[in-house]
C-alpha cells in the first residue's frame, strides 16, 4: 500500500463533514416536514410521484424529504428511510410499500412517535397498519382491461399469456387476477394465487422491465404460437412483448393490454402497439398525500380510510359496454414524458 497523500485525506474528511452538515441543516428548519418513500428512485412512475409531491410541498410551504429502496422489493431500504425521516422530524410520511407485510412494524414505530403515515399506490397488509391509503384500485384496473379484451375477442377462442411482475407482489397479483376476472375466467378472486393460472397458456415474470419482458414473451410464443391476448403488468413490459411479437411477425394478430397510463404507454396506444391500458394518477396520489400532511400540521387532524385516486381505460378502439376514453384524453392526463 503506497501512502495516500495528506491532502487527499483532508479532502475526503472535508467532503464527509460537508455531507453531515447538510443533513443537520435540514433538520433544523422550521417548516412542516413531509417524507415520501417510494419503491425505487428510478421507475418513472415514482419519479413523477416525487415531482408531484415536491410541487405540492412548495406550494404549501412544506419541506419534502424523499427516500427509496434500492430495487423493487427492497424492504430494508424503506425501513431505513422511514427511521431517518422520523429522526429528521417529519410529521407525515407517505410511503409506497415495497413489501406490504414486512414494512408494518417500522410503520407502527413511526405512528407511535406521533407521525401520520399514509400509504400511496399500494396497500399494507393489514390495511389498518397505516392511517390512510391513496391508491389506484389495481384489481379494478385489471378488470377493465380484462373486460375490454373479452369484448375485443368477439367470441374468438382466447389463448392468453400474462407477463407478470414477480412472484408474490400484491399489486402484480391484483392486476393479474383482475384481468382474468374481467375476462370472465371462473373462480378468480382478488387474492387467488397466481400460480393457479387457470385459462392462461403461459404465465411469465417480466419484473416490469422491457428487456426481460421481451425475453418472457419470446419464450411464451415458443411454448404456444397461438397466443392472441397478452396481459402485461406495465407498459415497459408491453413494449417488450410487442418487440417479440413483431420479430415473430405476429404483432397484427395479438391484442396487448396493460396498466399504467404513462405518457410513453399512451403514445403506444396511439401507435396501435397497446390496444388498451388502465391509466392511473400518481401525481394525484402524491399531491393529496402532501396536502393531508400540511393539514395535519396546521389542524392536528389526521386522514383515514381508503381514497381511490381513480383509473380510466384508455383506448382508441372503444368496445361497447366498456367505458373508455381515447388517447387524446390519455395524453392530456398522462404522467412521465
Amino acid at each position, binding site marked *: 500500500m503506497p501512502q495516500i497523500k495528506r491532502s487527499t485525506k483532508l479532502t475526503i474528511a472535508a467532503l464527509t463533514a460537508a455531507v453531515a452538515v447538510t443533513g443537520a441543516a435540514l433538520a433544523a428548519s422550521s417548516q412542516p416536514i413531509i417524507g415520501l418513500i417510494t419503491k425505487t428512485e428510478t421507475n418513472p412512475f415514482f419519479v413523477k410521484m416525487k415531482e408531484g409531491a415536491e410541487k405540492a410541498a412548495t406550494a404549501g410551504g412544506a419541506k419534502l424529504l424523499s427516500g427509496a429502496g434500492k430495487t423493487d422489493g427492497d424492504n430494508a431500504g424503506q425501513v431505513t428511510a422511514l427511521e431517518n425521516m422520523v429522526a429528521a422530524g417529519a410529521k407525515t410520511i407517505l410511503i409506497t410499500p415495497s413489501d406490504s407485510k414486512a414494512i408494518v412494524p417500522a410503520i407502527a414505530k413511526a405512528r407511535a412517535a406521533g407521525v401520520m403515515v399514509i400509504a400511496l399506490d399500494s396497500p399494507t397488509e393489514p390495511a389498518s397498519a397505516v392511517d390512510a391509503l391513496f391508491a389506484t384500485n389495481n384489481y379494478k384496473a385489471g378488470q377493465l382491461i380484462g373486460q375490454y379484451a373479452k369484448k375485443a375477442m368477439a367470441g374468438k377462442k382466447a389463448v392468453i399469456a400474462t407477463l407478470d411482475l414477480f412472484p408474490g407482489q400484491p399489486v402484480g397479483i391484483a392486476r393479474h387476477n383482475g384481468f382474468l376476472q374481467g375476462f370472465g375466467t371462473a373462480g378468480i378472486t382478488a387474492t387467488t394465487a397466481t400460480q393457479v393460472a387457470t385459462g392462461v397458456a403461459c404465465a411469465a415474470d417480466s419484473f416490469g422491465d422491457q428487456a426481460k419482458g421481451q425475453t418472457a414473451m419470446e419464450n411464451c410464443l415458443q*411454448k404456444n404460437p397461438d397466443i392472441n391476448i397478452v396481459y402485461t403488468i406495465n407498459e415497459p413490459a408491453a413494449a417488450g412483448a410487442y418487440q417479440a411479437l413483431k420479430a415473430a411477425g405476429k404483432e397484427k394478430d395479438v391484442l396487448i393490454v396493460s396498466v399504467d397510463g404513462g405518457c410513453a404507454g399512451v403514445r403506444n396506444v396511439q401507435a396501435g402497439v397497446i390496444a388498451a391500458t388502465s391509466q392511473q394518477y400518481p401525481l394525484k396520489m402524491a399531491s393529496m398525500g402532501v396536502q393531508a400532511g400540511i393539514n395535519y400540521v396546521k389542524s392536528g387532524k389526521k386522514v383515514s380510510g381508503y381514497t381511490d385516486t381513480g383509473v380510466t381505460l384508455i383506448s382508441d378502439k372503444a368496445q361497447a359496454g366498456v367505458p373508455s376514453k381515447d388517447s387524446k384524453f390519455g395524453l392530456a392526463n398522462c404522467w412521465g414524458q
Partner: protein
Amino acid sequence: MTQPTVSTAAGPRRFQLPSLSTLGPLIALLIAVIIFSTQSPRFFSGTNFSLILQQISYTAVLAIGQTLIILIAGIDLSIGIVMALGGLVMAKLATESGVPAVLAILAGFITTMFFGFVSSIIITRLRVPPFIATLGMLGIVTALNQTYSGSQTISNLPPALTALGNTFKIGGTAITYGTVLMLVLYLIAWFILSETAPGRHVYAVGNNPEAARLSGIPIDRLTIMVYTIAGLIYGVAALILVARTGVGDPNAGQTDNLDSITAVVLGGTSLFGGRGNVLGTLLGAIIVGVFRNGLQLIGIPSVYQSLITGILIIAAVALDQISRRKA
C-alpha cells in the same frame, strides 16, 4: 486476496481437454437439453436455439469483458450499468440531438471505454481494489444514467441503431446479426488470449503478479488496457441490447454484473485469476439461457431457474476444487 498458486503453465495449452469444472456444467447442459426436448416438442429446433442465443447475446458479450478482467484477478461490478449508459448515449444523441447514427454509436463506445479506463486508473493509481473501485463506479454511473435520461426510456430510434436486430436466414432459421457479432467477438477474444503475447501476459499476471512483474510485464499498463478494452466490449453489448429492445433504457443492465459473473464461473474460469478461457464463458451463458427458455416452455415457475443456476455455480467450482486436489 489469496496466495497466488504457483503454476508452471505460462498460458493456456492450445488443445486441452475441458477441465472437470467445465465438464460438470456441460453434462448438466446435455441432461437439460434431453429433458426439455422430451418434455416440449418446441424446444429442439433451430428457431428456438436462435432465440436463446438472441436472449443471451448482450449478457454474453458483457461476459467477454468480465472474463478478461477476472483473468487478471480483477472484477467489474459496474458492467451492466456502464452498458446501459452507452445505450442511452447512442439513443439520445441519435434521436434528440440529431447526431448521425454512426457518430452516436461511436460516442457510446467512447463513453463505455472511458468508464473502463477510469475504473482502471482508480485501481492502478489510487490502489483501490477492483471490487471496491467498480462498486463505487456502479453507484456513480447509476446516478448518471438516471440524471442523463431523466429516468425516461428513449424510443423511435433510427434504423442504424437497430440494424443488429435484423435477421438473415440459414436453412429456414432466422438469425440476428447481433448473434453473429457475439460469436465473432468470442472467436476474436479466444484468439487474442491464446495466440498473442498480450493474451499470455493476461494469464501470467492473473497467475502470479509478482513473477509477471519480475519478468518485465508492465502490470499497471496491462490492467489499464484490459479494463479499457472491456469498456469497448460493453459498448458493443450496449449496441446489441439497443438493437434487440429498440429503445435506450435507463434501467437496463441492473442484474448483468452478477449474470456475467455467473457465466464466467460456470465456464470454469477461476475468480482468483490466471485460469480459465473465454469459450467456457460462452458455454456458461448458454447454460443460463437454455434453462430460462426450457423451464418456461415446460411451464415451471421462474423461481426454480435461480435455484438451478445457484446449484450449478456451486457444483462447477466444487468439482474444480476436487479435481485440483487430486492432481
